């Protein structure tokens, strides 16, 4: 079985896995990193949203072979030590989560948006397509606006 090395939350990891195995299953089932949630498995619900070289992506539709040598960040690696990422802090401040299942993906999507667009418009925020069955969209928007001061 081929072996792949990539950086996960700042640490180099090497896994033996079939080339076509989805990164989500490598993260969850082999490495025990369960922040990225399994929802649809086909890149639609985006509950597994994480960062690949700083950009949002869905590990469920990305093969492990495609991330060799690259930087993968999951929700577990977003905070700076014990200091929450500003997006995480805003989520706490605004009590955004309801059931919480989609929230790691929502936070990672919001953090990626703010990285590329420091002052997102409502339309930019609408560009986040992560699905939330609880309908927390109102407070997601509120939390993003708290971070960006808009």
């Amino acid at each position, binding site marked *: 079985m081929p072996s792949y090395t990539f950086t996960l939350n700042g640490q180099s990891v090497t896994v033996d896995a079939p080339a076509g195995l989805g990164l989500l299953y490598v993260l969850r089932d082999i490495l025990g990193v369960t922040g990225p949630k399994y929802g*649809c498995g*086909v890149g639609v619900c985006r509950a597994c949203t994480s960062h690949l070289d700083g950009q949002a992506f869905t590990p469920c539709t990305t093969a492990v072979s495609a991330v060799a040598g690259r930087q993968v960040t999951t929700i577990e690696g977003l905070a700076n030590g014990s200091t929450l990422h500003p997006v995480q802090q805003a989520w706490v401040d605004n009590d955004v989560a309801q059931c919480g299942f989609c929230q790691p993906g929502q936070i990672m999507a919001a953090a990626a948006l703010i990285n590329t667009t420091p002052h997102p418009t409502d339309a930019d925020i609408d560009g986040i397509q992560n699905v939330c069955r609880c*309908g927390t969209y109102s407070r997601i928007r509120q939390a993003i606006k708290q971070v960006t001061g808009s």
Partner: protein
Amino acid sequence: MGRSVYTGTGRTAEEIMMDEIAAALHRDPVQFRLDTLKEEKAKACLRWVRDTGSWGRSMVAGTAQGVAVNTEHRSAVACLVEIDLRGTEPRVTKAVLAFDAGIPMNPSGLEQQMLGGLNDGISATSRAGLVRPAWRPRPAPSPTRTRGPPTPTRATSRSTTKGARPCLPTRSPSTGSR
């Protein structure tokens, strides 16, 4: 108004009928409900949204107000919304909700439930539904892809051969066979 199995569909239909009955009787929809409701907390919620939401204010053509009330699980909720039909699709432009669930253990969570219920109601009424995209041959396997469609162009590809794909907001009509 709610997102339980029954409330989202059955109560919505019943409240539409209440409006139809009120119209047939030439009665104001809010006053008709106040006169027929039995539970005081439901009436209180309805009076609150009536007053706070300025029920009956003059509206420009193509916009309108509507109300609904529900009692469930010993709680009551009333909702007044304003809708704008002038664009390419209806938009809810304002919503006023009142609810009485007794003493909330988690007020923020209760507010979240109402916001989520409101979002769900707007979504279910105006956007949601099962739309199954037209079947296309599955794309050739790619070494860098696993189980999903190659791009998020949801209307053009399917990744599995069983079941309808989850519906996301799309206005394209269903062209697939069910």
